[in-house]
């Protein structure tokens, strides 16, 4: 066995594609402006009132100039090329050039909750209507959860460890947590850590609607005429999440790599907390969520009151938000009122496996600018009157420790503490 190295891990850059924009910069700009990225679905037809979703505007792999038409045809699971584009963005943002020497010490961990379900749908259709010999030879590659990272590796040239860490809606934090530990202990020097999901296909939308997880926008709902108001975490009338597509990737690196390449760190990964519920496949479990937050804070060698901003999981479901607030009360006690807590899902919706990575990137960018992003569409309720949810508009708020929470179906909780640099 190799000796542990205990290295510091920095975030050097990030990329994202979200309903607020096909790049991180556009996403951040629109988030600061307090905008929402929701509209009635255009990707497919659905027969449900859960028809308000978050679609990435103007995302077209061929028009982006990054991919040939043939490539876009073969990779018909949308999460593959989307990930390649966002990895490229993240490396450029970090200023890191993928030389072979650094490539072999670079891992790529891109999680997902639902993977290439869209390709499977196309293949099933082909199978039923044109016969088995018309099923695409690219079906299996499209379906494999690791293929977004694999295709990014083929296009961008890294050859270290590569797999897809899957933890449903916490996948992005799984990637960041695992990647940070691998760098700390010397397994690799650089990690592209992130998540991706493109779940806007009829079965998945209907499936979430039937579970009662997504908002049904009835004619009397305030989002009926203004879809932008559909996601309202911590509000009196929250009625479920808004399903979105998106991808987020962070570039993590060991301190000495950043120094050797003259790259500017944007934050440090200070602590990781990670638990499973052993409880229920969708309902959250307070005890294990509280433990995940405590672990992350202890791992960062700070106390709960040192956390100055909390990026909530905040999906806008009635019970989920209540239970998250309970957990926050248990961890932060009477300090909670002094700590701004906001949910980017009010603007982006729930990008499932991508959410945690996108939210980490947004939080870090905001921390660098001495501000916190808002929870928009806010309508107060006594349930959360002890929480400062940063309603509707961003706020100047210098801070140097933030906690980013993510919880997933199947009972997985992963919390990360980032430290300003």
């Amino acid at each position, binding site marked *: *066995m190799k000796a542990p190295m205990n290295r510091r891990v920095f975030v050097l850059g990030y990329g994202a594609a979200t309903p607020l924009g096909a790049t991180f910069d556009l996403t951040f700009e629109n988030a600061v402006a307090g905008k929402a990225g929701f509209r009635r679905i255009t990707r497919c037809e659905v027969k449900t009132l859960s028809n308000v979703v978050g679609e990435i505007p103007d995302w077209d792999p061929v028009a982006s100039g990054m991919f040939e038409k043939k490539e876009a045809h073969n990779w018909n699971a949308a999460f593959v090329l989307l990930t390649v584009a966002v990895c490229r963005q993240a490396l450029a943002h970090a200023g890191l050039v993928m030389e072979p020497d650094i490539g072999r010490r670079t891992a790529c961990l891109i999680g997902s909750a639902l993977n290439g379900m869209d390709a499977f749908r196309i293949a099933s259709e082909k199978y039923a209507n044109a016969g088995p010999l018309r099923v695409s030879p690219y079906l299996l590659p499209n379906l494999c959860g690791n293929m977004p990272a694999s295709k990014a590796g083929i296009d961008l040239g890294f050859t270290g460890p590569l797999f897809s860490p899957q933890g*449903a809606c916490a996948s992005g934090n799984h990637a960041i947590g695992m990647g940070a530990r691998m760098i700390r*202990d010397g397994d690799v020097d650089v990690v592209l850590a992130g998540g991706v999901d493109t779940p806007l296909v009829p079965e998945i939308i209907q499936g979430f609607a039937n579970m009662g997880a997504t908002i049904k926008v009835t004619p009397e709902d305030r989002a009926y005429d203004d879809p932008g108001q559909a996601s309202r975490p911590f509000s009196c009338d929250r009625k479920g999440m808004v399903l979105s597509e998106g991808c987020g990737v962070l570039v993590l690196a060991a301190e000495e790599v950043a120094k050797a390449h003259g790259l500017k760190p944007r934050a440090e990964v200070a602590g990781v907390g990670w638990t499973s519920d*052993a409880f229920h*496949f969708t309902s959250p479990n307070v005890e294990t969520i509280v433990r995940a937050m405590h672990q992350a804070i202890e791992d960062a060698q700070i106390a709960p009151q040192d956390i100055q901003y909390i990026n909530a999981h905040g999906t806008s479901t009635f019970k989920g938000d209540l239970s998250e607030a309970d957990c926050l009360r248990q961890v932060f006690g009477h300090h909670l009122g002094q700590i701004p807590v906001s949910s980017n899902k009010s603007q982006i919706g729930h990008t499932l496996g991508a959410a945690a990575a996108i939210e980490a990137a947004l939080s870090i960018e905001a921390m660098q600018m001495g501000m916190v992003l808002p929870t928009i569409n806010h309508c107060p309720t006594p349930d959360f009157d002890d929480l400062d949810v940063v309603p509707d508009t961003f706020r100047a708020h210098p801070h140097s420790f933030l906690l980013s929470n993510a919880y997933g179906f199947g009972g997985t909780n992963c919390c990360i503490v980032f430290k300003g640099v």
Partner: protein
Amino acid sequence: MGSSHRQAVILGYDAVCALGTRFPDAWEKALRGDSGIGPLTRFPMDDNFPVRIAGEVESIDDLDYPFLKPRERAKWTSPIFKHAMLTTSRAIERSGIEITPDIAPRTAITYSSALGGLDAALEADRRLVKENRLPKPFTNPNACINMVGGKVSILTGATGPITATISACATGSTSMIIGAMFIEQGLCDVAICGAVDFALVPAIIAGFATMNGTFYPKSGENVPPQAASRPFSRNRRGFVVSEGAGAVILAAREFAQSWGLRYQVALAGWGMTSDAHHVVAPHLPTVTRCMELSLAHAGIAPSAVSSINAHATSTQVGDKVEYDALCAVFGKKIPPVTANKSMMGHAMGASSAIETIFAVQGMIGGKIPPTINYDPDPDMVFDCVTDNARCLDQPYVLKNAFGFGGCNACIVLQKC
């Protein structure tokens, strides 16, 4: 060598595969050189369906476990869940560990799957398209790959870190590597690892066929199913898709010792690389580096390796690249090699978990099961264990696994 008290040791394991649903029986069959490959019967097919054979797992529904009750099976329609839970239950029983409230928070779960519950998604798709009926409420949970670990967590009460790390056909090995890494990093003391895949779904099998991955007989040739999977043979003609699941319970050596739990094999080293080369074709330099990294991590020279449990799926290119990489690492002295897929077919992500279990069983009993259907390829000269099981003491075994998209994972097992 660093400190070995955080080294992951294997406390228990269990597998179901095409050779049987009771591991001791499957192991006996493997030593005899039986084949588990037969006709593909999972779904009705037309005459033009390109694949006719598979490695199907026999039914476990008559076993007396709570998760096999009809109500549970009706909710969790994908077979991945019940097989993950069965192998986990038995592996924990065999390990002698009790996941008490004290141990539960220190127990991680990395049980995974390469393809997950796609059968549930397919069913929902067909219901919606053909019958205009809404998906069942459990469709999305069935289709979420990490739900396998979620069910294992609920079954065992384990509440440590949980994840499902997917690397296509290397998923089982990656699961064990991540479990061992969590232990080494101090995130947990125990890890429930493994992988399950039941991929005999029409569109998937058709996809494997159109990508020329699956076995296709020479025109006019009538091959018995048992003779189709022929790793390293001159007439190898693609892999046979099979079903299976394997669970492995890992623990930190110091934990096993302080709880008086028996172990005979440790994960001494591992390596992971990616190809950055081609969607499905393997790449010699990165496959070679993966094996080298695992040996370096274990702190041993290639000459210390006693046998190799190959990935060898029975494809032309795949087996050749693995052989070339073995030559690059071991020179002219390649240790005895065996390919379990000759008997059980390719159980996708589960294969490397099941084959690791076979390798471990072989280390404990001093035996190596044969590579059946072997007809030497003049381009690949090495000591392939064939015809009969071989008796051999094996202090170190190298287990290879390579996945689509160029995900490579190699593990060095050490007899304690």
